[in-house]
């Protein structure tokens, strides 16, 4: 009962946030009042009222906060996108709708996920194909060769590659350590060779496609899953050492890697060319201050690719650093709720799957926000749920749907 009350309260605040954001936008319209803002705000409210209704009404056993937290983040994202460029926000609204639909469909239609653990080979092939697509047919966008277009519809295959990589790792690592007594240490280790090779190939493709953000992300996911599956800290150490060696080699080998590191070292030196994005992002965050300039009063459009990679800077400038912190906390809470899911998982495959998807979202946030504020070398990946972009939205909601499904299954049987 108590939890339902809390949930209602949170839901109310989300509506309030949405209304405040879009009413604000209504007033700052370029030519007097902007009615589009109000319409969009109402549509968003209806959408998450509907999704929340479906989930709580028909699937009351699952985690209630996953959807709530993701909705708050998506609202902030669409709000700032509407402020920056309303047509992009409209597209984002469509993708959000699609995302919500996928989320619900996954929960409603998918059979128990335990059975999916068998298709290891399928996941492996999918992963390798998706990873290589960019290298073979990719076109360059912002220096990374990870976009392909099919019939006028362009997307990032690696985004979907993430999903299958996690599934493959979960399927492959689930057998590790079964019947411990019979197997020696070496035989157990042998079970890790195949996933190790697949991960390395994927990382190689990412570095080749200059998509260093994804490479970092894959590494973080793989190491976390490896640790959860094996409980062995020394594997983590080995991986870290290998990653550093690999990183050093690619630093020596590839100019683009060196360049990223150089910019990260002193962005101001390259402020007019290579460091432009980072420098503008830092200026944007600094000029917002703790409380921000207020919607429509800053100049976030001075930051390049502000609608996707650098949306965090725009949010910090207009809504304040405090909103940025709040978002980070919200992401962590989302991660926390997601990581609770595998605890109730029925079998190792679903648990690992849940760990993988949770890590994917959290690591993505750390990598892109860290890059945008200059804490780590900048890599172009999206901020899940907030950045504009169809693939990112779909992937994130799909993984959240899987998590919701696992939590639903786990709870209902216990």
């Amino acid at each position, binding site marked *: 009962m108590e939890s339902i009350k809390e949930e209602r309260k949170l839901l109310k605040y989300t509506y309030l946030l949405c209304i405040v954001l879009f009413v604000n936008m209504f007033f700052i319209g370029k030519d007097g009042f902007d009615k589009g803002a109000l319409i969009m705000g109402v549509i968003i409210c209806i959408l998450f009222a509907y999704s929340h209704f479906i989930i709580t009404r028909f699937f009351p056993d699952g985690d209630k906060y996953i959807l709530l937290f993701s909705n708050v983040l998506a609202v902030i994202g669409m709000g700032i996108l509407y402020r920056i460029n309303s047509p992009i926000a409209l597209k984002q609204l469509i993708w959000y709708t699609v995302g919500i639909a996928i989320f619900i469909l996954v929960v409603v239609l998918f059979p128990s996920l335990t059975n999916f653990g068998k298709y290891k080979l399928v996941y492996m092939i999918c992963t390798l194909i998706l990873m290589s697509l960019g290298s073979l047919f990719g076109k360059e966008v912002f220096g990374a060769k990870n976009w392909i277009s099919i019939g006028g519809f362009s997307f990032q295959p690696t985004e979907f590659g993430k999903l299958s990589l996690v599934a493959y790792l979960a399927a492959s690592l689930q057998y590790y350590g079964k019947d411990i007594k019979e197997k020696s240490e070496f035989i157990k280790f042998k079970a890790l060779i195949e996933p190790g090779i697949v991960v390395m190939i994927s990382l190689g493709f990412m570095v080749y496609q200059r998509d260093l953000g994804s490479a970092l992300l894959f590494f973080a996911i793989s190491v976390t899953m490896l640790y959860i599956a094996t409980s062995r800290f020394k594997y983590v150490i080995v991986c870290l050492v290998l990653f550093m060696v690999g990183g050093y080699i690619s630093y020596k080998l590839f100019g683009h890697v060196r360049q990223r590191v150089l910019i990260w070292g002193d962005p101001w030196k390259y402020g007019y060319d290579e460091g432009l994005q980072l420098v503008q992002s*830092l200026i944007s965050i600094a000029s917002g201050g703790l409380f921000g300039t207020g919607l429509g009063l800053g100049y976030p459009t*001075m930051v390049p690719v502000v609608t996707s990679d650098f949306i965090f800077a725009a949010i910090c400038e207009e809504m304040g650093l405090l909103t940025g912190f709040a978002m980070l906390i919200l992401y962590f809470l989302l991660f926390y709720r997601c*990581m609770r899911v595998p605890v109730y998982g029925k079998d190792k495959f679903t648990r690992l799957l849940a760990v993988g998807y949770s890590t994917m979202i959290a690591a993505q946030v750390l990598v892109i926000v860290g890059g945008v504020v200059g804490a780590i070398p900048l890599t172009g990946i999206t901020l899940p749920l907030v950045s504009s972009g169809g693939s990112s939205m779909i992937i994130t909601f799909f993984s959240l749907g899987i998590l919701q499904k696992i939590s639903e299954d786990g709870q209902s049987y216990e």
Partner: protein
Amino acid sequence: MNDFVINIKKVMLVFLLLFIALISYITYIYMFNSEKAVSSTFNNRLWAERNKVLRGTIYDKDMNALTKSTKISVTSQKEKYLQGEIFAHAIGYMNPVYGLAGLEKKYDTELMGSGETVVSKFFDFNKKEEEKVGNGLRTTLDSKLQKKAYELLKGKRGAVVALNPKTGEILSMVSMPSYNPNNLEKDWKGILANKDLPLINRAVSGLYPPGSIFKTITAISALENIPGVSNRSFVDNGTLVFNQSSSLKNYDGEVMGNIDFRKAYLHSSNVVFGTLGIDLGNNALKETAEKFYFNKDTPASGITIENSQFPSYKSNEKGNIAQSAIGQAQVLASPMEMALVASTVANDGIMMQPMLVKEILSSKGKSLKKIEPKQLGENMSKENAQIMKDLMKGVVAEGTGANAAISGITVCGKTGTADHKGDASKQVAPHSWFIGFAPYENPTIAIAVIVEEGGVGGGIAAQITRELIKTYLQ
């Protein structure tokens, strides 16, 4: 199972620490780096803030627009200089890369300011927001004269200043070589590499030895300090000897014989004016020069004038004192300063403050502020001014300035042929100077012209003055 939960907790802890580290890092850069970030040159927000107002227009004295601003993007607007090179030094430039210069800099606040109040805007949010336009400036420049001066100087190095002697209004101010303020980005490297320094406004910042036009100041000083000098007669044997090693000769070694004060001025006798300089002494002459704001900041509105220089000498440095009386030695003057000398004589001895802007207008053309002419002081008595006017009339009518004469208009003036230390390796021609005003009866224009290495003052500088006066008065 237990193992699994512990592992999950450990992973959560690691991620919690990473999130905390990230938030701490952001706090750190916010606390210690944000000031540097905001004030860095990469921050276009200040330009964007400025850009909310469309820069006002600069007009000539007849309200013809000289500039036109258009918005390009959120952060930038382009100011088009409709007359290009012709008004470059008079107006200056506004450029997002190279900043502000000249009038654009002096009157930046006015050009970017608009009359609208904040309150009225606040209650007006239903209406489509009108483009804010900065105030306009009505300058004192005469487009026709400016264009003529530009044409006459084209291809040479030098400057022209034309003033209204009664008000101090700057009618024309041209410096050569010029630059095109519309193409600064493209031309900047070439402009900086040019040995002739096109960016310098020679009219106010060029300091030259004035040569014989300085005799005007020496004559004024003599009239004020030596009673009866205008009736005195001198012997000019062509050379003024100070000691064995140094002497002062007339131009071309001319010997004028027995002449009076008037004739000495008309024919620009170095010997006579050198003698007068010694008679006056360094102090008296310096005092007169300083009345004309030598060695001091000349008050001016809309421009900044480089200080002209008149040196101090000990009384035994006769050679230098004599040289300084004919505008050589260490005497340096800007064309603006010399135009003010001519203008003061024309205005019966009263020096007017030079001014470039006469009115500030709102974007709709309403007058917001009028700038009134200001007197700087009476530099000579009315009688002496009349004597000087007659002398200068004589220069054009029967002396060295014959080239400036116009039929139907009585032009007054003084020529100057200034030796200067050019490149030591080669023989350089002297600077050609001319100061003057017209018409004699009721002067409405006072002019100073210098053509660097242009030869004798009675030549090219006098011709340019003639053409300008013709353009202005006819």
